[in-house]
């Protein structure tokens, strides 16, 4: 589903050039649950941004569903994102001015889905995430765990092919973190590909495979022997 060839990302200021990614080659198959680990500043988030089509690489190739997308314009990337990718962020990234219902509905609005279809889909995911009863509340009125459940609901409402989760448990306590991991596992078992960045080895084990990054390079890839139920 996802394949990169010698991916490079450079950040340049007037005086300094930083290599965030250096010849990264990764491959992620449909239905996999892959974790990316590494110390702070190793390029995890940069890799996620590129794989999530939130940014373009400086060099290299990126194939998404067989299409080379590394040179896509922002418009083309937006279209691809909208149709294929769901995001879950560490800091939830809900829009404070929108209610829970409206936050989850947002991707469908941008896809110009008719109102009746939107309503049906949003209600379905809100039920799945067990936050239907808070649909008219605003994000600041919810706990961290609840907010993350809303973020997951938003990520899956458009039925994306892949979910990119950037440290989804980073701002949560362990019980809420476990909850979110169970959700992601559940989605993966349903056929959704999951790509997750994490600092936690425990949570990394939820996936099939762990990719280790260091200083912008892939250093190891492990396959998990442990499976969670």
């Amino acid at each position, binding site marked *: 589903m996802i394949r990169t060839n010698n991916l490079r990302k450079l950040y340049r200021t007037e005086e300094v050039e930083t290599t965030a990614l250096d010849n990264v080659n990764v491959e992620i198959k449909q239905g996999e649950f892959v974790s990316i680990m590494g110390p702070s500043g190793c390029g995890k988030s940069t890799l996620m941004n590129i794989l999530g089509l939130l940014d373009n690489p400086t060099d290299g190739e990126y194939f998404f569903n067989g299409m080379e997308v590394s040179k896509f314009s922002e418009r083309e990337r*937006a279209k691809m994102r909208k149709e294929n990718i769901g995001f879950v962020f560490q800091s939830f990234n*809900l*829009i404070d*001015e929108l209610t829970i219902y409206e936050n989850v509905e947002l991707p469908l609005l*941008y896809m110009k889905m008719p109102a009746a279809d939107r309503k049906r889909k949003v209600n379905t995911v809100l039920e799945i995430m067990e936050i239907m009863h808070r649909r008219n509340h605003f994000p600041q009125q919810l706990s961290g765990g609840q907010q993350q459940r809303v973020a997951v609901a*938003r990520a899956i409402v458009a039925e994306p092919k892949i979910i990119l989760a950037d440290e989804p448990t980073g701002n949560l306590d362990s019980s809420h973190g476990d909850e979110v991991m169970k959700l992601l596992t559940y989605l993966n078992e349903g056929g959704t590909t999951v790509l997750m960045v994490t600092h936690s080895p425990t949570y990394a084990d939820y996936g099939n495979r762990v990719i280790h990054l260091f200083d912008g390079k892939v250093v190891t890839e492990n396959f998990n022997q442990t499976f969670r139920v």
Partner: protein
Amino acid sequence: MLLSYFKIAFRNIRRHKGHSAVNILGLSVGLACVILISMIIKNELSYDQFHEKKDRIFRVFVENNQDGKKVESAPVMLPFAPAAKAVIPEIEEAVRTSQGGVLCSYNEKRFYEPILYVENKFFNLFSFPFAKGDKARALNNPNTVVISQRIAEKYFGKENPIGKSFVFDNKNAFIITGVIYNLPLTTHLRGDIFVSFSTLNNEMLPRLNEWGNFGNDYAYLLLKPNTNSLFVEKKLNNVMISNTSEYYHDRFRMTMQPLSEVHFSDFVNDDARTTPQMILYVFALIGLFILILAVINFINLTTARSSRRNKEIGIRKAVGASRAQLIKQFLSESFVITLLAFLLAIGLTYLLVNYINELLRMELSLALLISKENILVLLIILVLTSLMAGFYPAFILSKPIPSEVLKSSSGKRKGYKLRASLVVFQFAISVFLIIGTITVFKQTNYLMNRDIGFPSDRMLVVVNNDPAISSNGAVYKRLLLNNENIETASFSSGTPGSNIASVSNFSIEGKGEDDELMLQVINVDYDFLTAYNFKMKSGRFFSPEFATDSTDTYVINEAAAKKMIGVNPLQSRITSGSGGDPDSKYCKIIGVMQNFNYRSLKKEIDPMIFKLKNNEGNFLTLKIKQEYIASTVDFIKQTTAKISPAYPFDFFFTRERFESYYRGETVLGKMFLLFSGLAIFISCIGILGLVSFSTEQRSKEIGIRKVLGASVQAIVFMLCQEFLKWVLISNILIWPLAYLLMTKWLNSFAYRIDFSVMTFVLTFLISLFVTLATVSFHAVKAAVANPVDSLKYE
């Protein structure tokens, strides 16, 4: 989707109340200015538009070419209109009017009223509907009058005035043959008593059949349908040429203007209600500038705060928003804010409209806005303002790459250069308006206080409408001079500030038509010179020692002497008229008097000629002591009543009359003051918003500096210096343009101030002070804040 955008817009406004209030207030002031100025301009443009035949009505005027200068003059010689109609078939009607004033009486009611003598076809041209009487025949006969409902009510109350008579000047009866509905304010005509032109005869008005004399007389032409007006205009001059001597051919050119332009003329000796067209352009520009200021505020404040919305923008892009969708969202938000500002602007307009009406003597009202056309214009203003204000922020806010804006530490100060440019532009507009205000006030002050050649603040002029006063002139003067507060008394046919224009041509003995002079004629008595403290430049003034002074002599002023090229005035004799007549009487010029301003200081001094008519004249000038003015006026009133019991006492102070000439400039100064105040207010709102945001953004930096030892003053200076830099740059940038434009305006005055450096210095100091005062509140607040609060999470 649109509904969703509006919902978000309202929620954002509620959430960021301070920022929203600043934006809405600034925009509303800008919009209120635009609405008010649109109303003013619309009012001015509507002058004379209510006449059905307006597109076919033209007013004749004269271009005077003298000494290489072209002067446009409204009065037209009285024989012109009938002569033009007789030979130009394209003219359907030619109508003459003559402005005058009378003592109007009915029973015990007596008032001085302006009147307009008009020909019987007047109401065929101009659409003044009749409430009573027959429009076609109302002014066919001499001594008939048509009045407005206002006049009817003033004199007759609820009675029907038709068939009743006014008495004019306690002499002649005039029958009221018609009552018209009240004239709208938007007419260039003055007065609402219309007297039949056929009343006038040669005895009353010698210039009735004279081609060389001008008074307060005007000519209007109604052209036949589908006539090319340029074609008719070319023929007008031929009418003058074929009826006058060669003297006139080079000096005068007869031409005409459409009725719609009369209100915007800037002619000499024009009784019409006029507004210089330049004023409208100035107002329109000011309105536009102020709106631009408000829009710049919106753009600056919105883009400055763009980092606050980065997260939201990143999320929206991450979940699939295209740039176009984001632009639509931000434009919708801009529309909501503009709409709220617009509603507030309507309220502000309502509050300001009475002040504007009083200042400009108009009858503007919000009710006038309620018409299909006006509502459409308002909607266009609303949409355009919202687009102007919202487009750039929408463009900027929707641009960033999602990965950049989703980073939590995205605190870059983007768009700084553009914001700085916009603030400089904003300040520049305010600075320009301040310079304009100072200049207009200084020039007006100069006009009002300039030495006009005599002590105007001590001159009281009694308007003499009663012939009995002239026949008892000597007695009247003696009675008045018994009062120790009255120093001098002098009769004349016109005085400075009297607005009496009587211009004739004079020829010099032994010289040809090329040397003929057009001179303002004033009859004076022996005391005229001393009454006004005038000096003779050469020769002598009229004196009782010389018996022939009243019949065989003239005195002229310096301006007239200057026109007598190659001739010594004191060795010359002149006569009125062209001099070709063998019976012309040439009179000696015995003296040249100093120049003085007879009319507004906006015009050059007229060449003048004085003839002696002792102890008679329409005006009696009294030089009075400045103490006890009220009791002195009372004394004059009682004394006048003894001599002239049948006429109400009528007078004016020369100083006040001259001040009234500059009413236009005074109003302009007040409007400049109002709008520059508003511009400064809007700019201050903008600075307040920017500085509050800037100090918030730099709170970490301020905290670190304080920990490292920076004083409060150093912090305040650091925060202020950016704004001070902008003030300095904007001043320097706008000074040349302001200098050019203000100099151009000042050059339209015959007497004007010099543009001084102090104007720029004062402007700079004002703009600096206002900016510092606005910025310092937030700067000091930020400087004294506890650094621990801003560095807590670092």
